[in-house]
């Protein structure tokens, strides 16, 4: 077993363990923190496969953005020491069955599927190349998605603001 292997399986263990913890812990803040670990583990995995840019984005956007957002919200909406009620047994059972069943089926089919590892040469994963592709409008360029997501982010921002903004209905006086 090589070091990468060991590291991977360790990573896998961390990811799986914290995933499970994150959906089972009864403290919300902890759930957010466990999520953080999962996301970090994932970022580490991106590093392992040489997707550095993606790993960086994962760290910045996910961990720096989303998780922080969640933690702020948690602080906003609940007490630190609040413990969540135990989930209903019925939901746990049914949900567990569904999730487990789904896992078995998809994992089995994935496991059995004869993926043939490509022998093609690795592409250029450098940030420069990524930037070039992001702004390329020809074959293999991603400028259109880039623009679309900019609209999306704008819309999301506006949307979030109008909802979260406390408005005072105009009073006729």
């Amino acid at each position, binding site marked *: 077993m090589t070091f990468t292997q060991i590291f991977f399986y360790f990573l896998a263990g961390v990811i799986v363990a914290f995933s499970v913890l994150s959906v089972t812990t009864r403290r919300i803040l902890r759930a957010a923190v466990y999520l953080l670990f999962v996301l970090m583990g994932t970022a580490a995995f991106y590093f392992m496969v040489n997707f550095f840019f993606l790993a960086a984005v994962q760290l910045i956007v996910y961990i720096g953005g989303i998780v922080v957002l969640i933690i702020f919200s948690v602080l906003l909406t609940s007490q630190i020491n609040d413990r969540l009620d135990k989930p209903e047994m019925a*939901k746990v059972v*049914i*949900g567990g069955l*569904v*999730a487990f*069943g*789904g896992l078995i*089926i*998809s994992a089995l*089919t994935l496991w059995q599927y004869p993926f043939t590892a490509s022998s093609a040469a690795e592409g250029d994963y450098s940030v420069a190349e990524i930037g070039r592709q992001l702004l390329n409008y020809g074959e293999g360029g991603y400028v259109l998605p880039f623009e679309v997501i900019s609209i999306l982010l704008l819309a999301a921002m506006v949307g979030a603001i109008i909802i979260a903004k406390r408005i005072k209905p105009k009073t006729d006086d």
Partner: protein
Amino acid sequence: MPGLEHTILIPLIPFFAFLVIGLLNKTLSPKVAGMIGITGILASTILAYQVALGYFFSFGQVDGVFQKIIAYKTSWLQFTDSLVIEMGAILDPISAMMLVVITTVSSLVFIYSWGYMKGESGFSRFYAFLSLFSFSMLGLVLATNLFQMYMFWELVGVSSYLLIGFYYDKAAAVAASKKAFIVTRFADLGFLIGILLLSFHTGTFDFQLLTDPNGPAITSVGGATFMGLSVVSLSLLLIFIGGAGKSAMFPLHIWLPDAMEGPTPVSALIHAATMVVAGVYLVARLFPVFAFAAPEALEVVAYIGAFTALFAAVVACTQPDIKRVLAYSTMSQIGYMMLALGVSGFGEDGLGYTASMFHLFTHAFFKALLFLGAGSIIHAVHTNDIFKMGGLRKFMPITHITFLIACLAIAGIPPFAGFFSKDEILAAALVSNKLIFGVGFAVAGLTAFYMFRLYFMVFWNEAKIEGAPHESPSVMTIPLIILAIGSLVAGFVPFNELVTSNGSLLATELHWEVAAPSVAIGLIGIVVAMVMYRKASNLPSKLSSSLGGIYKAAYSKFYIDEVYMFVTKKVIFNLISRPIAWFDRNIIDAFMDMTAKMTNLVSEGIKEMQSGQLHYYAIYFASGAILFVVLMLWMR
């Protein structure tokens, strides 16, 4: 046949009279309406006499044989290539004879009604219906084919219905009219099915083709049988059911006594002289088919006729209502006619046929006379109950004399008309069937008895009416007198020369070996009646109490009505119609409603699927997706 097309006017003139009176009901005064009706029927009568006399004495015979002549024909409705309803007029001895009978009696009744119905609120309506009836009846006898006959058959039924129910605010009249129509309708069902069956196998409705001894009905349909009967026999039996219904043969007779609820002239015209003999006419019309292809059916006709004759005569002896006595008497006499037809053969052996037609002819006169006489009496005393009458001979001399003539005629006393025809019937019966002869003979005695019972109760006995009833106006008595003359002379018409089964002359003579005993038994009947009823006595009640149950049964018309009532009310209404209505509402309809209810129930039942809980939504989502995955993987 050219030159005779105007025959069709004989029925059409009354029809137009009906239309005019009916449509202009509001605007015409009753008198004008009556005049239109009378004028119409008189015109028809003149035409009918012209045609009938012409037929019998100038153009009807070819080589000594009376022909069937199609005076007029037009196709009316086409069913299949061969089955066509045609409207037309046939002339042969029986139709010509019937034309005379119908128009004569009709015009007399029309005239008589002028007096009888005077002042009634529905005076013009009455004439409209009478005209409609005349039209239908004349159309019936002139029918060239079975289907035309069936149509007019129905029409006479409806006119009869309308006339019986003339006093429509009287519950009894309404019920009687309904009963009459439904019973005859039921019988007509047999008629119709018979027609369908016969026409299918012969391929024609046409009387000429049907009755042709070498035609398809008689020759070609020997093969097909059903339950041991040949198809022809079967269909003729079915057709006879129709005839039996109209002619009030047992057990379809129950409507006729009740039909007496109608105005008396109507009873005279429809329920004595004309419509009720339609059944006889129908059998006579199809007689060759009966005789050649369905002797079994003919036998049935004979027995039914004989039984009805006896049955009705017995019942007639006990009835208290003058018109009902006459009604049962009518049934009995028609039974006679049927019996005669039933025992008859064809051609040389066709005495029964001739006798039957002869009796039909004479009966029309004296029975119409009896009814009109009864009408005259009722008009005077305002009751139908003979026990409330008596001694009327002093007040109503003309009615009395004419009524007596009629009674003598029906009792078969020579030289009145009934004697001759009855004699021929009995003679024919004697030749062919002793049992039937015996019945006929007994009925002759009974007839004399009940008629004179009636006669003595009404005209002799002691007067029970308060005040002095007076004789009817001349517009009523003149028809009585004319009919009385008819009853006297009708017996001398040489029927054996004119109306025979094959159209050619039939040799007959007076059969004294039959006539003498029958006159004798008639006289005995009269004498018995005289003894019992001429003066008030307790003899009748003694007799009736000694007869006990039989008398009671006869008085109650042998409970036939009750049986019918049971069947219609209890069985059909309560056991069939109501359950069907219930079934329809609570089973079939409920099933339709049930599907709706089930849908709603299911809808209510699955509403928890939409629980409002996001968790469950996701569970449905995920499990749905996984389920489809499994399903699709498994189906592969």
